[in-house]
Each structure stands twice: as structure tokens, then as C-alpha cells.
């Protein structure tokens, strides 16, 4: 067993363990943290495949941004664990059957790949091979159409998110800078000329 294979099995075992803990952990924050671990080990596997761009992007995007926001929300929620786990055992057999089917099919797919390309070895790349550059070239030439479409899908997601959540609250205390800058002296200051020199009104004693 070469060093690569050893590392692969280590990472794969870690991924499976972390993924299992994601669904079995009692505390949702722990579950989220195990998901982070699963992402990390997956990134490691990608790294073994010389896909450093994907590996690092996985860490950057999922671990660095998505999961942080996820944790952010999960930590703030008051989740009732008992309620959450209700019906777990009822659905458990169903889940197991589904998982078994998935595993079975995965094996099938990978098995058939092997028969398509019998013993085809993936060539190792030279040290100056840049996975990032290759991906960039493909995305902007051959896959430019789906790439742009994906961008449009994201645009729709943004428009939809804003349309669904933006609502001006009257009691919001956030500052409007444009308004502050545009304010004029007359809006804030009122000069009142108080007549002076008159005698004060009658006293209380009267």
C-alpha cells in the first residue's frame, strides 16, 4: 500500500465517521461541527486527486462561509432535541433501505466505469500543472453556456431573496447616510427670537 492509498483510506474513514456523527450527534451545534470535519476530509481527498482548486474552494466556501453562517443560525436557535428526534426510529428502516439502494447503485456505477476503461491509468501531472488554470480555461470556453446559466440562477436567487425578505420596518433604527448628508441647517435648527426687556409676568404670590 502506497502512502497515497494510506492517506486516502484515512481521509475516507474520517469522512464517513464525521458524516455518521452529523446525523447521530445529539446537539445540533456538534452536528454542524462534524459536518465541517466531513468537508475538511473531503477536501483532503480532492487534494489527493490533484484537484487543489476544488479542495481549497470547498474549504473556503463551505467551511469558511457557508458553515459559519449555518453555525450562526443553529447556535441562535432554541431547538427542542426531544421533538427533533421524535419518530426517528419509525423512519429509520426506510432510511436504511434508501441508503442501501444508494450504496448499491454507487457501486454499480463505479463498477461499470471500470469496465468501460479497463485499467486506464490516470496520468500524473507535472509539477507546474495548474488545476486552477485548466478549470478556468474549460469554464470559459467549453462550458461557458452552463456557467453563465448558473450565474443567472444565482441572480434569480438574489432577486428572490430580496423580494421575499426586504420590507421596510418603521421601527428600524438603522441610519440612512444619504439622509444624514442631505440634511440642512433649516431642518434641524430653529431660531426663535425671544422678545427681551419686558418685565416678567406677575409672580406666584399674587
Amino acid at each position: 500500500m502506497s502512502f497515497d492509498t494510506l492517506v486516502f483510506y484515512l481521509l475516507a474513514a474520517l469522512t464517513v465517521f464525521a458524516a455518521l456523527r452529523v446525523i447521530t450527534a445529539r446537539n445540533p451545534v456538534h452536528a454542524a461541527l462534524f459536518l465541517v470535519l466531513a468537508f475538511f476530509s473531503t477536501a483532503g481527498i480532492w487534494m489527493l486527486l490533484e484537484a487543489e482548486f476544488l479542495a481549497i474552494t470547498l474549504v473556503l466556501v463551505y467551511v469558511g462561509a457557508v458553515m459559519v453562517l449555518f453555525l450562526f443560525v443553529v447556535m441562535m436557535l432554541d431547538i427542542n432535541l426531544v421533538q427533533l428526534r421524535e419518530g426517528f426510529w419509525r423512519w429509520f428502516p426506510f432510511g436504511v433501505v434508501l441508503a442501501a439502494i444508494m450504496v448499491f447503485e454507487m457501486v454499480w456505477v463505479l463498477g461499470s466505469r471500470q469496465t468501460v476503461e479497463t485499467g486506464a491509468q490516470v496520468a500524473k501531472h507535472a509539477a507546474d500543472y495548474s488545476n486552477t488554470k485548466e478549470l478556468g480555461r474549460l469554464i470559459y470556453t467549453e462550458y461557458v453556456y452552463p456557467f453563465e446559466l448558473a450565474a443567472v440562477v444565482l441572480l434569480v436567487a438574489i432577486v428572490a431573496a430580496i423580494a421575499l425578505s426586504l420590507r421596510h420596518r418603521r421601527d428600524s433604527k438603522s441610519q440612512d447616510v444619504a439622509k444624514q448628508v442631505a440634511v440642512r441647517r433649516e431642518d434641524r435648527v430653529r431660531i426663535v427670537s425671544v422678545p427681551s426687556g419686558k418685565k416678567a409676568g406677575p409672580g406666584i404670590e399674587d
Partner: protein
Amino acid sequence: MSFLSTLFPAYAEIFLLVMVSAILIVDLFLTNPNKTVTYALVQLTLLGCSMITVSTHQHGVVYLFHNMFVDDLMSDVLKMLSYLSVSMMLVYSRNYLMVRGLFTGEFMALTLFALLGMMVMISASHFLTLYLGLELLSLSLYAMVALQRDSAIATEAAMKYFILGALASGLLLYGMSMFYGATGTLEVAAVSDAITHGVPNKALLVFGLVFVVSGLAFKLGAVPFHMWVPDVYHGAPTAMTMLIGTAPKLAAFAFVMRILVEGLQPLMVHWSGMLVILAVLSIAVGNITAIAQTNLKRMLAYSTISHMGFLLLGVLSGGIDGYGAAMFYAAVYVLMSLGGFGMIMLLSREGFEADTLNDYKGLNQRSPWLAFVMLLLMFSMAGVPPMVGFYAKFSVLSAVVNAGHIPLAVIAVLFSLIGAFYYLRIVKLMYFDAPESHVPISIQPDSGLLISMNGLAVLALGIMPGTFMSVCAVAVQQSLLLH
């Protein structure tokens, strides 16, 4: 400039994307609450798109973007129908949405994004673009259903639609990944070639096919994957229901054609069997359940399910007859639903949805012309002879018979007869019952004119279906048999 001219067949999509981005920005600076300028821009965009589609039409099948985009007669015809449908939907729903405060720039932008998604699906020749187009369409629709945020029922509908839609997308993707595993390509034509030349693991393909067909059935709303349809149709604001129920069905037809017919033709033995089950169940469940409905939107939802069954019947019988009939059926269905939902919106007013059957009691006394138009639409949906709905059903059934599935045809006819009951019940309510409310009906001139034209078109196309039917047949023939 030579690069730009190579994009010639995709000009309509590019134009639409540019315009919708511009509309999004322009709309920010418009303060008119009626959004007249935005609305005009949207209609102009649709007009521009149709002009571009006509003028960029080329004979034969043209591929673009490394075989990911295909331009053929079928795609052009379907796109034109989609523009028309979206444009009509906007006319019908303008007043309805305005009184509910939903006629916003985002609504129109999302509508156009949904249209872009449909166009992408219609012109896709790669599993990746098919999927992305579908997601673009679905994502826009989910958001639009949820736009009415103060309505609990709309929010619930959006949630159901979103979750089941995501599940369906997952099924589709999983199926596609199996095709990729078995054939090593995602290109529709290449997948077809690879299967014809034999793949080592055919069982895997069939497995993938099950997932893809399930996903498609989900999106079409065919039984047993139809649970979301009534709830979403009922819960969404009627304008959104209309959008969901019309043009996307054309895109869904294209989707079925591209995946099953163009990509998986060699597996037809397998998928036609699955479609038989879906079609029969849809026609049966759709027609029988619709009888029990008291809400017109729910009833139309179940009627959609049965219409989708008919569409699948056309597809599974195969050949130019079958595919042409299915395409014709899809187009006719869109026309009829536009009228049906249009009528609901026309009769609605602020704080009142004309969506229960009782609201149609005695419509003849309140507005004889509207009642007549509704009669035309209902007759057409039921398949009563002079209307186009009859001809659509007839052409599908004759294709089914020609393909040798006589029991299927018998079942379909039987259930359509059962289905005719609930369409005719509305006619009975309109003409023979006393009205429950006497609130005068006020109709905007544009939507009033449109619904009249819609109703008359159903009649006129029924009397002279020949031209359009042959357009469908030629379109299917050109795009399927030339490669």
C-alpha cells in the same frame, strides 16, 4: 464581431437576459406604483424576443456552445408560444396583482427569468443545460408563489412546491448521473449514440431512467407524483397559478422530448411502459378527483393532471403522429388554461377571489358574454366537438390507436367522459342557477378584449386546426429526424 455572429441562434436568450437585467435596474428608479413603464418594457421585451426568434430562424438543426444549445423548428415554435403565453398572462394578471399590491418590478423580473429558464430548457441539448434551465424556471416560480407574504396559504404552497421541487430535481440529477456513469457523456445526442452502440451495464441505464422519469413526472405533476399540484395551484395567487399552469408545460414537453425521445430513444421499450402507468393513473385520478372539488383552482389543478396524462399518451405512442399530437395538445392546453385562470382573475376584485364554484352561479345573468366565453373554454377542456380541445384529444387518441395501444385509448376516452361532468357542471351553474352575488363586474378593457379573443381562438382553432397541427408535425419531424 465574428464571435458575436456565431451566437446568432441564441440571440433571443441573450436579448432577454440583457433586458431583464436592465429592467431590474430601471425599475429601481421608477416611483410610479402602477409600474406602467416597467410593464411596457416587459411587453416590449417579449415582442422583441419573438421578432428575434422569427428572424434568427434557420432551416435545420443548429448546435451552439459545444453542442449544449440547439436551435430547431420545434424550439422556435415552442418559444414563440411561450412568449405569447407569458405576455397574455401579464395582461390578465396586471389588474389582479395591482389591487393586491403584488404588481412589482420583482414580479415581472422573476416572470422573465422564468421565461428564460423555459427557453433554455426548450433549446437544451445537454443534460447540464436541461437541468440548469429547469432550476432557473423552478427557482423563479418558487419565489413568485411566496411573493404574497402575508398570506399563510401562499407561503405554505411555496414551501410545499419548493421542497417537492427540490426532491424532484434531486431525482433527476441522480438519474442523469447514472447516465453519465454508464455512457461517459452528458450530451443528449452522444448519450443516444452510446446507448445504440451498446453499453456494458444496461441495467444501470434502466435504473437511471426510473429516476429521470420520476423526476419528470414530479415536474409535470403526473400521478403518483402529483401531490403538490392541487395545493400549489390553490394556494398561490391566481396570477402565479396561471404562470405555473401554462408556459412551463410547453417547456416540460420540450424537456420530455429532449431527454426521453432524443436522448433515450434506444430505451423506448422501457420508458414507454413507465409512461403508460403514469398516463393512465393521471387521467384516472385527475378526472375522478376533480369531480369532488368545490374550488375552481383546485379543480383546474386536477384537470391539469389529467391533461398531462394525455400529453404523456401522445409521447408514448411515438412517431411523428404521436409527438406532433403531444405538442399540439400542450399548446392547446396552455391556451385553454390561460382562458380559465384569466376568467378567475377577471371576476376577482379587491378582497375577493372568484375561485369557488359557487361564484360562477348565474354568471349568465350578470354578464352573458363572459359566461359564453367560459362556456367555450369549458367545452374545449371537456373535449366537446367544435372546440380545439376535442381535436387535441382526438389527435392524441388516434396516435395511440395507430401505435396499437387500443385498450389505452379506450381507458382514456372513458375517463374523459367522466371528466366532462365537472366541466359541464360549471356551464350548468352559469346558465341554470341563480346568482349568489350581484356585485357588478368591472373589467379592464385590455383583459376583457383578450379573454374574448382567447375564447374565440379556442373555437376558431377547433374549426380549422389543420394549419397549426401541421406546424407541430413539421416541427417535430424536422427536429427529431434530421439527426
